[in-house]
């Protein structure tokens, strides 16, 4: 995974509460066995008419928001299904971060493992960012993972929380599996001390 430190991007506002992962990537696109091509299906049912033509009023179809790399979602973003296809689809659609007041647990975990930053801000800043995106779609904000900050074009800055371990992994481009594999001795010790509860191979 590529390390993430600082990046700047334009905002796309989608301030709807409780956006579930079925909206981010509908289930009929989950019959894949890899991660490719999901970007085209991101928000498919909000984005396209039944005949496949784009819905002109949907924010991501508006010319001014083309190329935006930071999505502003509403409260409780990413609720519902655990499908990791949701962050894959958002990344595939060109997003590097999602800003919300609140993320659903599994989505946040999945996003962090794929280098899609879930950035939590308070309701006031959330509203300011939405206004900024609506009034000036060309405005760029800067997200600094090391400083855990979001900087607006006028210099205003807010910090956001992130657990130290995820931050470390993202800053250094290391994945969490490597850390778990390095604990092999401890896992073996645990297994030696704890009898298996069930073995699926022996009914």
């Amino acid at each position, binding site marked *: 995974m590529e390390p993430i430190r600082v990046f700047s991007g334009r905002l796309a506002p989608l301030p709807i509460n409780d956006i579930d992962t079925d909206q981010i990537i*509908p289930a009929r696109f989950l019959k894949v066995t890899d991660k490719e091509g999901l970007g085209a299906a991101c928000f498919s049912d909000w984005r396209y008419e039944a005949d496949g033509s784009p819905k002109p009023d949907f924010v991501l179809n508006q010319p001014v928001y083309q190329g935006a790399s930071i999505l502003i979602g509403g409260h409780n973003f990413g*609720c519902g299904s655990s499908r990791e296809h949701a962050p894959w689809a958002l990344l595939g659609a060109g997003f590097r971060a999602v800003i919300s007041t609140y993320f659903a*647990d*599994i989505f946040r975990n999945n996003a962090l493992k794929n280098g899609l930053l879930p950035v939590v801000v308070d309701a006031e800043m959330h509203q300011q960012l939405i206004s900024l995106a609506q009034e000036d779609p060309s405005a760029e904000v800067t997200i600094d993972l090391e400083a855990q900050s979001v900087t607006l074009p006028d210099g205003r800055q807010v910090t956001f929380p992130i657990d130290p371990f995820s931050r470390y992994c993202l800053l250094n481009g290391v994945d*969490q599996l490597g850390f778990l594999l390095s604990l092999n001795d401890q896992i073996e010790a645990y297994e030696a001390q704890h009898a298996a509860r069930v073995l*699926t*191979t022996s009914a």
Partner: protein
Amino acid sequence: MTTNGHFNRNRARTLFEKVWDQHLVRPQTPDTPAVLYIDLHLVHEVTSPQAFALLRERGLKVRRPDKTLGTMDHSTPTTPRNALGIIPVTDQMAAAQLDVMRKNCADFGIPLYDLGTSNQGIVHVIGPEQGLTQPGMTIVCGDSHTSTHGAFGALAFGIGTSEVAHVLATQCLLQNQPKTMAIRVDGRLQPGVTAKDIILAIIAKIGVGGGTGYVFEYMGEAIRSLNMEGRMTICNMSIEGGARAGLVAPDDTTFEYVAGRPYAPRGADWERAVAAWRQLPSDDGAVFDNEVTLNADDLVPMITYGTNPGMGMPITGRVPDPDHLSDVSQKMALDKALKYMALQPGQPLLGQRIDVVFVGSCTNSRISDLREAARLIKGRKVAEGVRMLVVPGSQQVKAQAEAEGLHEIFKAAGAEWREAGCSMCIAMNGDQLQPGQYAVSTSNRNFEGRQGKGGRTFLASPLTAVAAAVSGVITDPRELMN
């Protein structure tokens, strides 16, 4: 406390804390999450292929194939078998995905309940049914409704595909310790009111984000008096309240259910296991971070009107009016939902015309759900113009239902009797609503398009589903029970 790895053994602990503590390979530190050992990893075809691909890419093995089990459920057809007894897969992408699952399980030595074989079914139905799900275990699956297994007093939760790879490779997960919420349901359920109505009422009360960051423990007289299948229905939808896991303390009802199942301990092992399980319930004085209470005496059948499971109300109620909400974003969300559902603020749902009824899913497709539905539909007919699907949760449930003649009751009423799988809960397999259709569904999600693009879902209990099927409109099941 668990932070430094020193436990105060005398401190009163919750059920969750006990299971958590027993599975710590390495406690949480200021820099790293806790490392939690996983006793059982369930795998299905949709959320695992990319995880197996990662293992191959890194040259890794599955650490404990003997603690892993595969099944096929999400993209599988539930249409009847052909003359050779085979369930034909006509969707080429689904067929390819199922083949990848077969190859992955074969290559990595994981037992697989293949499509149409006698133990296959929805991943959260087969674990308990086989006796694999037992109190005090940690259970994960790349599926958010893994919370179902919490009904046994197991810590069970859904994970993403990266985490599926973590567990395949190391049998461990990195987790920050969640908070705990006690959900107390006192009183007794009235006739016609079920476990599904309890959980829909809880979610309507706390909202779809209300449990984020928490593990629920359901307790109180109404929970205690439920059978295991009712408890599973409740724990199943913990995720709809935002919680990754929901537990019920194990008791004699739990032990009776587990006893004698294929993977249950036997003989002296059984006695030892039960003795250990009896230590699991939360201690007197254990502290929860939050608490919600509900009284079952007051509950009536529940139904959803909107596009998330928190938008639910008593079936006798009226659709809320967005103009009565003060919070702007909530108002917007309700506006959007009612527009999608094509419902008017203030209208009752009783009498609302419907097109499809779906009885199935990991929430309500077990034998007791089918028995209840069959009892109510017996001697009645599915209304003209309504399509009803009954999809058993597993091949075992299907066989049991057929042994009891339930399938004949459903078929005589005019319902479709299907093979086991997720089916119209997620609409990946061709079982889906047409745009604009209304469905009463016993599943767990009423999100836009969940049951088919443009489809509109009312979530309810199996009894309410049957009442709608035979009336052609949303109907209070209690009216049919008198």
